[in-house]
């Protein structure tokens, strides 16, 4: 049982998952909380759950965070 951890992780769903629309709507706010070291995940657990599970939104989050930190070249 559980011999395929990547498949297991992929199939797991989080009932708190806010979905793409809500995550994209608040992404700029969420990113600035993260950048400032504030507990973004506690304030927006549904968005945090979504960003962990959704590849495209997760990439947008990482890109925006890199941009506001100024560490993208």
């Amino acid at each position, binding site marked *: 049982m559980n011999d395929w951890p990547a498949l297991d992780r992929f199939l797991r769903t989080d009932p708190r998952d806010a979905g793409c629309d809500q995550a994209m709507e608040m992404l700029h706010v969420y990113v*600035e909380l993260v950048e400032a070291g504030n507990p973004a995940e506690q304030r927006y657990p549904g968005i945090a759950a979504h960003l962990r599970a959704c590849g495209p939104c997760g990439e947008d989050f990482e890109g925006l965070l890199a941009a506001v930190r100024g560490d993208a070249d």
Partner: protein
Amino acid sequence: MPGAGPRLRPVAPWPRAIGQVPAAADALMAITGKLGQFRGESRFTTWACKFAIFEVSAKIGRHFWRHPAVPLDAEDWDRLPDRFGADPAQEAEWRDLAAALRRAVDEVLIPRQRQVFVAIVLNGVPLDALVVELGSSRNAIYKVLFDARRKLRSVLVADGYLRDDCPGNS
């Protein structure tokens, strides 16, 4: 813009992807069209950069179909182990699980869920590219896949292939 006054600061460098995709004009159009929606919840540059990134993501999704690696309706289940990094040395273990997953896909998913699962999981079509092909939205496709994942895991747990170690989270 609200009078609360967002804190302006020099625009941070764009992510590498933005610099490599000729989407600057489209991104600027997207931002310009949304200026009236800015509510000062963040720095203006963060808010504007968000839409530039969305524009690039959508453009990359459209670009995929210029040279698609596989047709949308292809269905190669032999790719499944590679997709999930299965260890060839453990072929006997994952072969049963793969067969069970395929049965579940055939038996419990509705046609739309099956179509999205096959495109994204088996064929490796990026979600944003599938959005373009199906004339849908990222949120709608994600929700279809979310429901499919939940159904499939539930079946695999019920049949003893996966461990239900998070009751309530299927």
